[in-house]
C-alpha cells in the first residue's frame, strides 16, 4: 500500500468515526509515513470533510463527536512521536471557552469547542457556570488568543458583559478576542457589550474566530 493510500484510509476511518480502525492505521503507517504528513494528509482533510458535512446538515453532533474521538485517538499516538522528533504540531490559536456564570447549558458550547479543536485551535473548555474571573484567569494561564463565552438565557447573557468589564477593569481588554454566542444572543447584543465577534451557529462561530485571529495577525 502506498503512503497516499494509507492517508486516504485514515481519512475515511476518521470520517466514519471509527476510532479503532483509524488508530490501527496510524500505528501501522508510522514506520512509512512521518507523523506530520499523517496529520496534514489524512487527518485534517477528514475533519474538513466532517466540518463541511456538519455545517450543511448532512451529519449531526453524534457523527461529529465520533470523528473527533477518532481524531483524538490518532493524535495520542502521534504526539509522542512528534515530540521525540522535535516537531511541533502547531495550532492556529488558543481558545478558552465556557458557558457563563449560573448557566449550565452545554450542547452549543460543546459543539463550538469540538469544531474549534478540529479546526486546529488549542481549546481549553472550562465547562459550565463559569465566572468572569475564571475565564480570564485561565486565559492568562494558557496565554490564550480568544475567550469564547456561551449564554443561553436572557438572564445569563449579562454575564457575557461581565467578562468584558472585568477585562477592561484589569487592563486586559485588548489582549483577547472575545466571542459570544448562545440561544438568545444576537449581533445587536454583541455590539452593545463590545464583544469582538458573534456566531449565530457553531460553524459561524468558528469562522468568526478564524477571521478575527487572522485579522489580528495570528493563525
Amino acid at each position, binding site marked *: 500500500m502506498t503512503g497516499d493510500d494509507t492517508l486516504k484510509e485514515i481519512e475515511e476511518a476518521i470520517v466514519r468515526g471509527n476510532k479503532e480502525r483509524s488508530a490501527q492505521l496510524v500505528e501501522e503507517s508510522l514506520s512509512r509515513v512521518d507523523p506530520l504528513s499523517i496529520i496534514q494528509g489524512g487527518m485534517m482533510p477528514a475533519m474538513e470533510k466532517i466540518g463541511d458535512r456538519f455545517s450543511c446538515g448532512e451529519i449531526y453532533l*453524534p*457523527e461529529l*463527536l465520533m470523528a473527533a474521538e477518532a481524531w483524538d485517538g490518532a493524535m495520542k499516538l502521534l504526539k509522542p512521536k512528534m515530540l521525540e522528533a522535535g516537531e511541533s504540531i502547531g495550532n492556529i490559536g488558543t481558545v478558552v471557552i465556557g458557558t457563563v456564570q*449560573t448557566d*449550565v*447549558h452545554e*450542547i452549543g458550547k460543546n*459543539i463550538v469547542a469540538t469544531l474549534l479543536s478540529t479546526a486546529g485551535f488549542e481549546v481549553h473548555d472550562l465547562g459550565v457556570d463559569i465566572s468572569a474571573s475564571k475565564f480570564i484567569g485561565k486565559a492568562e494561564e494558557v496565554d490564550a488568543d480568544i475567550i469564547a463565552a456561551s449564554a443561553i438565557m*436572557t*438572564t445569563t447573557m449579562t454575564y457575557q458583559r461581565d467578562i468584558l468589564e472585568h477585562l477592561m477593569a484589569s487592563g486586559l481588554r485588548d489582549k483577547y478576542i472575545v466571542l459570544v454566542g448562545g440561544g438568545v444572543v444576537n449581533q445587536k447584543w454583541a455590539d452593545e457589550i463590545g464583544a469582538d465577534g458573534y456566531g449565530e451557529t457553531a460553524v459561524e462561530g468558528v469562522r468568526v474566530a478564524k477571521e478575527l485571529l487572522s485579522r489580528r495577525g495570528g493563525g
Partner: protein
Amino acid sequence: MVSFPEILERATRGPIMSSKDFDIKVFIPKVREVVEKYKIRYDPGTPCPADDDLADRIYQAALDLYADVGTYVIDTERVIQFSREEIEDAVYEAPKEAYFGEGPDRCVFKGRKADDSEIPHCHVGSGTDTTEDVALKMVEAYGRISKAKTVSIPSVTSFGPLKSSAGSPVETLAGISMMRTGREGLRRAGRPGMGIINHMSSCAQGVSTIAASNPQFGARQSDGWLIAPHAELKIDHSSLNQVAYLTSWGANLGQEAGPIMGGYAGGPEGTAVVTTAYCFHGILVARAIYHLTYPVHMNYVCSTTPDMLYVVSTSSQAVSRNVGVPYYALGYAAAGSATKQYFYEAAAYLLAIQSSGIGIEDVHPNKAVVTNGALPIDSEFTCSFGHGMVGITRKEADQIIKRLMETYLSGIKNPPRGRILTECYDILTMRPDDELRRTYDEAIRELRGLGIRFK
C-alpha cells in the same frame, strides 16, 4: 407512580456518571439503537405524516430509550433510573386534564387525538424578552383575545434601571414585578381569573422563581409553572427545588422541553424519539400535569423547516395516541414579526401540531431572540387559525404545508427582520398600524387561498 421523595432518593443514590459519559456513552448510542430497532425513518417529502404505526413505533422507541437512559442530575452526577413498568404506570396514572384559572376564566386543558374535531387548547402570549414599559400593555392585549384560554406573560429582564442577571437579587425583583404586572394586565383586560401558565419567565433560577411565586405577589395554584430540563434529559437542583416547593403548595406543574435537532439526539428520527421521551421525564421527574414542547433546529435555530415539522408532528402524534396528557407545542419562526413570511411559517407549524392532536401556542417570530419581537396580532392569528381549522387531518395538513414551504423555505437562512412592537403598534391603544394590518390581511387572504380557514 413513583413518588417525588423516591425521585429525590434516586437522584442521590442512582449510578454515578460524568455528564460527558452520560451524553457520549449512554445517550447517543441508545438513541441510535432504538431508531434502528423501530425502523424510524424521515421522509422529507412528508413533513406531517399520517402514519399511526410510525407514531406508535416512536412511542415504543421513546419508552425503550427512557427505560435505559433515565434522567441525569447535574448537581449529584447521578442518574435517576426507571424500569419500563414504572414508566408505563406513570403514563397510565398521569392526569389527562389540567385546570387553569379561576371563576369564569377557569378552563380545562385536555389531551386530544390526531385528526380529531375538538377545538385545540389555544394558548397565547410569549416569554420573549420584553421591555418593562410595554409589558403591561402586552399582557392586557393577550387577555383581550377571547378565544385564548391561557396566557404566557413576557420575560422582563430589568427592574427600573437595573439589568437582571440569573441568580441575582435583581432577578428576584424583576420576577416579582412581572408577577404583579401579569395579574394587573389580565384584570385590565377583564379576565382577572385567567391562568398564567409560563411562570416564571423572568426568572432563570429556582430561588428567584420560588420568591416570585409567593401568593402575596399574585401567583395562584391555578396558574402553571414550567420546569425546564437541560438538553438532553438532564435536570439540576435549581429545577428540582422548584418542583419541591410547588408540589408542596399543590400548584400546577408543567414541563417545557426543547430538544435540539442535530445535537446529541442526532437527526429528525432521533429527535422525534427524544422529544417523546421528555414526556416521561416530565411526568415522573418534573411532576408535570401539562407539557410544552419546542424542539429546535441546531443550525437554523427555528422550527419551521421540513425536518423540524416532522419532529414535532410525529412526536406529538406519539404522545397524543399513547399518553393523552395536556400537551402543546411552541414553534420558532425564522422571519421577524409583521412580515408575511412569519404568517406563512406560523401557519405551517400550526397545521402540523393541530392536526397531530395537541394544543397550540403562538409561533414566536425572529426565533424569539429580539426584544419586543412578539406581537399581539400573532396571538389573534393563532386563535383564529385554531378555531377555523377544527377537524383538519394530518393528510390535509401535509399537503398545505408543502405548498406553504414553497413560499418560505428559501427565506429561512436570511429571513426578513420585520418590525418590533414599538415600530408597528400604537402603544396607547395597542392597535397595529395600517401597514401591519395590510400585511396581515394580505397574508390571511393568501392563506385562505391555500385552503386555510380562519374564524
